[in-house]
């Protein structure tokens, strides 16, 4: 388990940036296929699941069972945030055009811009973390 907070922060930032890249690929694929009949757009699902995993670490029950044997079943188990993978989800239910294609170019461009700004923000936060370490080392 990571005890150092700096490492955990950098690790989280790293994971979020990876998810952001996958989302960018998915948006690029949606955009490239915006005229293909029967193409269905995809989404990437990451942040909400990461949030849920991080919250399980805090939700310790009031009464925790004592484990005296490795075969005992615990009544509470924190979900490791490192198990959370970005997942691609097919948006198959909606239809916005007559040819079965549900890519909305305006929405995709908006998502692309939002994702790009998020990536910039994460990169800046990572830079800040390392600059603080530099400050200590000097």
């Amino acid at each position, binding site marked *: 388990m990571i005890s150092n907070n700096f490492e955990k922060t950098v690790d989280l930032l790293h994971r979020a*940036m*990876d998810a952001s*890249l*996958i989302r*960018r*690929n*998915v*948006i*690029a*694929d*949606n*955009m*490239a*296929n*915006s*005229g*293909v009949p029967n*193409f*269905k757009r*995809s989404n*990437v699902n990451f942040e909400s699941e990461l949030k849920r995993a991080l919250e399980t670490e805090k939700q310790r029950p009031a009464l925790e069972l004592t484990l005296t044997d490795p075969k005992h079943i615990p009544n509470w188990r924190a979900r490791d945030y490192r198990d959370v993978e970005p997942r*691609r*989800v*097919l*948006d*198959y*239910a909606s239809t916005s055009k007559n040819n079965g294609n549900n890519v909305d*170019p305006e929405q*995709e*461009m908006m998502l*692309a*811009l939002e994702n*790009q700004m998020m*990536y*910039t923000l994460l*990169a*800046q936060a*990572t*830079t800040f973390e*390392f*600059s603080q370490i530099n400050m200590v080392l000097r």
Partner: protein
Amino acid sequence: MGLFNAINIAATGMTAERLRSDVIADNIANASTTRTAEGGPFRRSRVVLRPKAEQPFWRSPFLPDMMDGGPGKGVRVAEIQKDTTPNRLVYDPTHPDAIQTGPRAGYVEMPNVDVVTEMVDMIAASRAYEANASIIDGSKTMFLRALEIGSR
């Protein structure tokens, strides 16, 4: 790995849209060609696009990891199809390709190219091209931002 993939995917889109506008330009250029090597008037062609990675065939948003082909590989040109809609008939008995006998004598078979449709398609293709180009531009900015992480 990831960011260059986005650039490659957007590049496949740009290639496809460029081919589409090339085909449209060919259609417009031949809008009144009445004699071709295959015989008969020119027939308009259209581009058929398909996703490069086939999409899963069952309708569910949750894919098992083994069936998921990743975030996608972009678009490809499946074929350039000849449009089989009937040709336009224009009455012009002095035209060298005019029909000589039968009930349609005096008419000329003109290509089935509708210039208005072609212009609309061309605008769609050029806008899609621009959208893909802006995806590449944004990816470039993102990559430069990632390079700045170690530099300060």
